[in-house]
């Protein structure tokens, strides 16, 4: 607006050029996203209804518009489907429970150390996430320190292990996406004017009521952004399940990966990917509508 206000009156011949400028700025990046994001998704949709060639080699498919591929893919993998969403939900809930007080503390209780603590939240994520996931595997593993303490205190039995379990997978997912939860929460908490909380106190609200009626509602955009940024990658993840899980904790990502690389069953992999993406987009849309914050991007 400032531009138009100051310069708009003196140059009228430049007007046409100016209206083209935003499109020129957008073009290269948008073209990139169109070619390497939209087109592959369209191509994926096409692949998902293909069937194997009658007497072709493995990995050769022809288009027959067989939509039953979706039903087959879903029926064969409904457990992994359910697990993906269950684990992602649990990890999101846990991450919220861990990250909210953390973000709250950084925003309101850390004084001059605020920036340092913020850096420390992100810092662990510069160590490769695979190294950290494998570290969890070894910490929780048979030779690690945690299991002997747990067994010594009889929290778990002698034959129960912590790794290769759904517990380990959810722990890994929670850990891996924690900064995606913490940063948006911090951003929305930090924006809250502390005087609104003081005002609640002046009006005889106790600490809990102040939190429930003032702080929490005002931080809702952060909760929405954080839960989305955690849930989406968690639902599609397969690394945690591959490293920390067992064959009974496989998620949809594991199936897509193995259909692609080990079985070369592209149509099923495509149908599963497409279903996963659609399911997530539907959930996200409903969630954003319910939460009433469309200002995400």
């Amino acid at each position: 607006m400032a531009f138009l206000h100051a310069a708009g009156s003196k140059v009228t011949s430049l007007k046409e050029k100016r209206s083209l400028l935003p499109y020129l700025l957008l073009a290269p990046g948008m073209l990139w996203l169109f070619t390497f994001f939209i087109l592959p998704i369209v191509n994926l949709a096409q692949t998902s209804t293909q069937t194997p060639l009658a007497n072709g080699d493995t990995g050769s498919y022809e288009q027959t518009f067989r939509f039953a591929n979706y039903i087959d893919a879903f029926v064969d993998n409904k457990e992994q489907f359910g697990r993906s969403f269950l684990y992602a939900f649990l990890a999101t809930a846990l991450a919220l429970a861990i990250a909210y007080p953390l973000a709250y503390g950084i925003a309101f209780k850390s004084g001059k150390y605020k920036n340092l603590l913020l850096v420390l939240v992100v810092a662990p994520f510069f160590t490769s996430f695979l190294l950290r996931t494998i570290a969890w595997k070894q910490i929780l593993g048979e030779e690690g320190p945690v299991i002997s303490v747990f067994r010594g205190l009889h929290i778990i039995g002698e034959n129960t292990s912590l790794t290769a379990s759904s517990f380990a997978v959810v722990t890994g997912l929670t850990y891996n996406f924690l900064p995606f939860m913490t940063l948006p929460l911090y951003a929305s908490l930090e924006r809250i004017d502390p005087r609104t909380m003081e005002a609640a106190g002046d009006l005889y609200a106790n600490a809990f009521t102040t939190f429930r009626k003032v702080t929490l509602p005002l931080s809702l955009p952060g909760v929405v952004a954080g839960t989305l940024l955690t849930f989406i990658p968690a639902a599609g993840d397969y690394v945690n399940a591959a490293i920390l899980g067992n064959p009974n904790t496989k998620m949809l990502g594991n199936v897509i990966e193995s259909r692609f690389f080990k079985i070369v069953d592209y149509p099923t992999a495509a149908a599963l990917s497409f279903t996963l993406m659609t399911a997530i987009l539907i959930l996200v849309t409903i969630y954003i509508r319910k939460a009433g914050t469309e200002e995400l991007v």
Partner: protein
Amino acid sequence: MRITWWFRKNLIRVYMVLGFTYLFIPVAYTFAFSFNNGGKSNLVWKGFTLGNWQNPCGAPDVCVALGNSIRVGVISTVLATVLGTLIAFAIGRHQFKGRSFTNTLIFLPMATPEVVLGASLLAMFLNLGINPGFWPVVIAHVMFCISFVVVTVKARIASLDPRLEQAAMDLYANEFETFRKVTLPLVAPGIAGAALLAFSLSFDDFIITNFNSGTLTTFPKFVYVASARGIPPQANVIGSAMFFLALFIVIAGQLVSRRKAR
């Protein structure tokens, strides 16, 4: 009342200590085991050594993988930062038709699981007869980094005081001069932050890379493949070194911007 306040205050502090402990346990573990005299497999503690740090390329292929990751990361970061910054300026500084379409197209890659992004790109490359490898990985990384760059730079542009640009115009700077001398320097920290974010996303990406890399090994892929038979301690050295390097860059960046603010 005072007791409740005291308790609440310290409850949060205790909670923060626990939270940070949880965050740093695997990092501390990785760092500690970078000094392990464990040979090829780094599963059990076998004794302290500085050897791994003195010779980080001692394990076969680990530095090849690191080199590939850095090359992919640098090229992807430069491309994604340029493309994303241009989009951010279009959205943040101009009125145009198709704005909500643009916003949706920026948001969608962030709302799509990595496994879908990776699989769909690979399927297209295979259909086109393009072999997976270095450039497909770069293409994929630029694609998923653009959105994050746009969001980061856009936030910075939105936080600028428009009066600064107005002042420049009042002092007879033309549009280009205003952009170069006022707008760009003010947005620069945002662009730098976006580039750092893009590099760390690219450097740490495994899922999309795994789909599109073919025989190219990146550092995360090396770790994943090695995890089946034991990761050499040199990988821990590189992971820890990245941690300290990033920490140094971020803290140095904050100190510089704080000094400038004074």
